[in-house]
């Protein structure tokens, strides 16, 4: 399996087929004499920032920390061993509502979208 081609930037869904996001980053373990092993995938603005460069990564982390506290300053990680299926999307055996990935969307829903009638 080619890491960059088959995993990076692919759509990620949870066990209920809810779209979580795209694979914004990968965490791999380098091993002696063997190909690297994927340990986890990363999602979120901090991971995306790092894709663009070291400096954008730092700015994204600082912005996230300022907006939502120190814990959101690191990218969201999903362990690779939770993978259930890889097809058009990568399906993970998790429930997105139990993660913090949707924190910003929940905030939007509560404070902006939800306040507009007819949402």
């Amino acid at each position, binding site marked *: 399996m080619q890491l*960059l081609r088959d995993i*990076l*930037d*692919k*759509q*990620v869904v949870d066990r209920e087929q*809810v*779209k*979580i*996001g*795209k694979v*914004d980053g990968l965490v791999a373990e380098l091993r002696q004499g063997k190909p690297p092993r994927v340990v986890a995938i990363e*999602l979120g603005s901090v991971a*995306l920032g790092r*894709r*663009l460069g070291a400096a954008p990564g730092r700015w994204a982390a600082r912005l996230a920390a300022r907006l939502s506290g120190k814990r959101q300053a690191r990218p969201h990680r999903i362990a690779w061993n939770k993978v259930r299926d890889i097809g*058009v999307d990568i399906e993970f055996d998790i429930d997105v509502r139990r993660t913090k990935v949707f924190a910003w*969307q929940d905030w*939007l*829903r509560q404070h*902006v*979208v*939800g306040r*507009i009638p*007819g*949402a």
Partner: protein
Amino acid sequence: MKKLLEISLGVVTSVGGFLEVGSMATAAQAGALFGFQLIWAVALGTICIIFLVEMAGRFAAVSRHTISDGIRERFGFNAFIWPLLAALLVNFLVLSAEIGGVAIAAELATGIGFQWWALPVAFFAWLLLWKGTFGLIEKGVSILGLVTLCFVVAAVMLHPDWKGVAAGAVPSLPQHDTAKYWFMAVSILGASISPYLFMFYSSGAIEDQWDKSYLGANRAIAGLGMTFGGTISVGVLIVAAVVLGANGVTEVDDYNQLPLMLIPIFGFWGFVLFVASLAVACFGATLEVALQQAYLVAQGFGWTWGEDLKPRDDPGFSLVYTLSLFLAAVPIALGLDPLKLTIFSMALTAASLPLTVVPFLILLNDDRYVGEHRNGVVSNTAVIFIIALGFVLAVVTIPLQIFGGT
């Protein structure tokens, strides 16, 4: 057979995408100044968009990805940023022009200045997107869009010199105003080949849950739907040539001159038909471009998206179209001339085409996405040729137009 009923997807994409303020304004200006000479530009644009739309449908049906999603996945986020930014910017200008088109129609009908209509139009579009479903928008706009057939009827009723019309379908060199001729050709190409058009089509195909069994219907829909739009554009051009150009109104630089196209033929109903056509075509485009902005961002970042969902279930998606609509209304509300904005944004579209079409073409040749349904030589060649032509013309004529001054 039921699939052919989904021709409504092709028709709405065509009415909202092909026939909108850009194609109407460029066709009217071209017809008034150059008679039938620029029909070839409309024909070329139509051919190109038929190929692109068919490819968009095929791509969505076979790979189950939308174009935005596919470009990010295939080229990576760092490369995706460029088509994303270019598309967001060009779409913003086009959306502004479309809102301006509806605002002009409202001004013509009521006498109240178009600036006052910008925000109400954006609000009404937003309301439809917020509460409506994809099916409702698709079918509603396509049925209302049939009013634009009045241009085709008008063109036929005028008994134009059909030999001259046919001659215009072949490219020819201008006898006068050379720089303007090529600039208009570029604007017509940009008006016909809008990236949001075929990207919207791929999102729509996923919204309508197309799969491989739709490939044949897709070809029919793309071909018929885009030809519908192209024929109406040619109709506008012919009418402008015979009613305006031949009577000495050679420079259509004021939107108040546009209703004059249909009034001599249909009398007062001509005025009504024109206003209705302009309003429906531009409103359809407003909905489409706003949705496309949201699709572009949501699909590129992997958020939940879908017009059939309630906004609370896809807050990111809903907020993008909300913001897009209200921001795009601002230039019009501030009084920017919608006609000038339209012509400019069409030319800019033509210049930006390679950035969005080239990645798309690569995807259509990648068997990891489309399997054995890869593009043939004809599709690839036709699209590359037309896009390259548009780009070269745009790069040459836009500076000339800015310095030559219109």
